[in-house]
């Protein structure tokens, strides 16, 4: 840990990329603040969520952040929990990223949950043990504690025994928490398109893919594409892992869609058909999120790590669409199919588009994550040290 003055903290080399990142971060942070103020003044009225579509962009962004966190935790564990030497160097940076992304997720969800203080009190006093949200929230709280302790023993008071113990605890609790987040959607018996085992498993898989994308982005930015040999070796191996994970994801998705469409089961088939025909799926999720990174890895035999860094940008945009569609597609089908007045048309798929405040808070959370990462990179030495 380094002692820094404010002047040193905010000093950075004025390269075009750094300036663009700084301006983006400040703009997104300002958007987050503006959205938060709008929410504090007007409550849920500044969001476009309705009775028929009660969850929106903020839930999607919360999932986006916690998926990122769990993914970074899982990928970092390859090195300092499972002991694969090439990956030990990413431990500190990945765990710092995991803490930052889950904190940003909590900041976003804090502005979505109507009564966060009531939640803290009654989560303890009258816990709903059959609720996936209760397990997810409680386990994520525990997970954050473990990874903070892990980071403490990795970067501040270096102790490899303790960092490994807390790393294992963080990994196990993170996996449990994250599959419970999948169960939040998978347990919805009222929503046939989401109900079932798919989401709890898919969440872990897509978290690992998100973790790989973020590692590529963090190292691409850290070394400005001039990777030292040791980093290149690690990234080539990570690229192979990413390629395999993407292949599994494409396989999973294909069978999920085929199973949903097969037999034309009421509600489920028409919902999934509507979802896959939308550009959010075929362009956002499929092309940006899966095919571009997969093809680059496949065609380069996982050696084009610079191209994979750029593909990771496309991949993260795709991951955003996966999270957005997860929420929106789950809520697409109207729960009451009869119109409530002679002068209406019969209910059809539920429409939703996020409000300005939702965009400001949701995407502003990315600014918060970027800012915290910048500070962490300045305050802590996130590169591998000789002690490691």
């Amino acid at each position, binding site marked *: 840990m380094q002692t820094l003055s404010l002047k040193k903290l905010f000093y950075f080399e004025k390269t075009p990329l750094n300036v663009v990142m700084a301006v983006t971060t400040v703009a997104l942070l300002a958007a987050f603040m503006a959205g938060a103020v709008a929410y504090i003044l007007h409550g849920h009225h500044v969001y476009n969520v309705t*009775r028929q579509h009660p969850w929106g962009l903020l839930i999607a962004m919360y999932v986006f952040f916690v998926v990122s966190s769990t993914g970074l935790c899982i990928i970092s564990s390859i090195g300092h929990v499972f002991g694969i030497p090439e990956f030990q160097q990413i431990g500190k940076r990945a765990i710092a990223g995991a803490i930052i992304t889950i904190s940003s997720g909590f900041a976003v969800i804090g502005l979505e949950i109507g009564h966060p203080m009531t*939640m803290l009190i009654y989560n303890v006093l009258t816990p709903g043990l*059959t609720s996936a*949200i209760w397990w997810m929230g409680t386990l994520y709280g525990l997970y954050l504690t473990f990874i903070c302790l892990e980071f403490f023993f990795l970067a501040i008071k270096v102790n490899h025994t303790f960092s490994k113990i807390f790393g294992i605890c963080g990994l196990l609790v993170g996996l449990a928490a994250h599959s419970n987040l999948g169960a939040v959607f998978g*347990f919805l018996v*009222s929503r046939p398109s989401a109900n079932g085992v798919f989401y709890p498993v898919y969440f872990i898989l897509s978290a690992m893919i998100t973790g790989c994308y973020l590692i590529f982005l963090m190292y691409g930015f850290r070394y400005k594409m001039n990777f030292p040999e040791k980093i290149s070796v690690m990234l080539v191996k990570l690229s192979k892992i990413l390629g395999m994970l993407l292949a599994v994801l494409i396989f999973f998705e294909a069978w999920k869609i085929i199973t949903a469409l097969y037999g034309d089961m009421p509600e489920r088939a028409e919902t999934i058909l509507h979802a896959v025909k939308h550009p959010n799926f075929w362009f956002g999720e499929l092309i940006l999120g899966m095919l571009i990174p997969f093809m680059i890895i496949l065609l380069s035999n996982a050696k084009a790590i610079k191209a994979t860094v750029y593909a990771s940008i496309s991949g993260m945009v795709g991951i955003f669409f996966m999270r957005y569609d997860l929420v929106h597609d789950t809520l697409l089908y109207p729960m*009451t199919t*009869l119109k*409530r007045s002679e002068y*209406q048309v019969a209910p059809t798929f539920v429409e939703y588009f996020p409000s300005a405040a939702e965009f400001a808070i949701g995407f502003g959370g990315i600014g918060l994550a970027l800012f915290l990462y910048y500070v962490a990179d300045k305050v802590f030495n996130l590169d591998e040290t000789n002690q490691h």
Partner: protein
Amino acid sequence: MARYGMALNYKNCINCRACESACKEENGVLLLPDHYRIWVGVKEAEGQFPNISIASQTYHPSQCQHCDNAPCQQVCPTNATYYGEGGMVMVDPTKCILCTYCINACPYDARYVDNRTNTVDKCTFCSDTRLAAGETTTACQATCPTKVRVFGDLDDPNSEISLLLANKEYRQVKEHLGTKPKLFYIL
């Protein structure tokens, strides 16, 4: 112990929607979009002109089904949703954190966010307004001009609703989900 439910002679419904007004008046439901505890669904007539089946146009009064196995209760992280007296599904606004998971989980679109308390609200079978005062009917039942609704104790074999269900065929909504709803549509 009582187990309250409601039978609906829905074919008698004339879509006057007096029940909606009575519910709002009795329970102080705000006159805002999305703020309704009960509603009347309109099923359009089938067929093409001139062969339109007039009999196929029906009205389906609906509300919270007060399920015996309520998905909204299972998913509530703070047990704000609970089974109250008579097996009614209730919401304790002091415990509700407004995560709206219950709104997602309800297969019947029976829940909404109350603007005043900023918590989730729904039909209570008028338990805190009429039943607590000794009444034996709900506001929607009392006001209905064609006697569509019959509210009562399903566990009492001599109650009007039990006798009705014993002698008539009925259907329930989305019972394949295993929710065990307590609204019965008389056929």
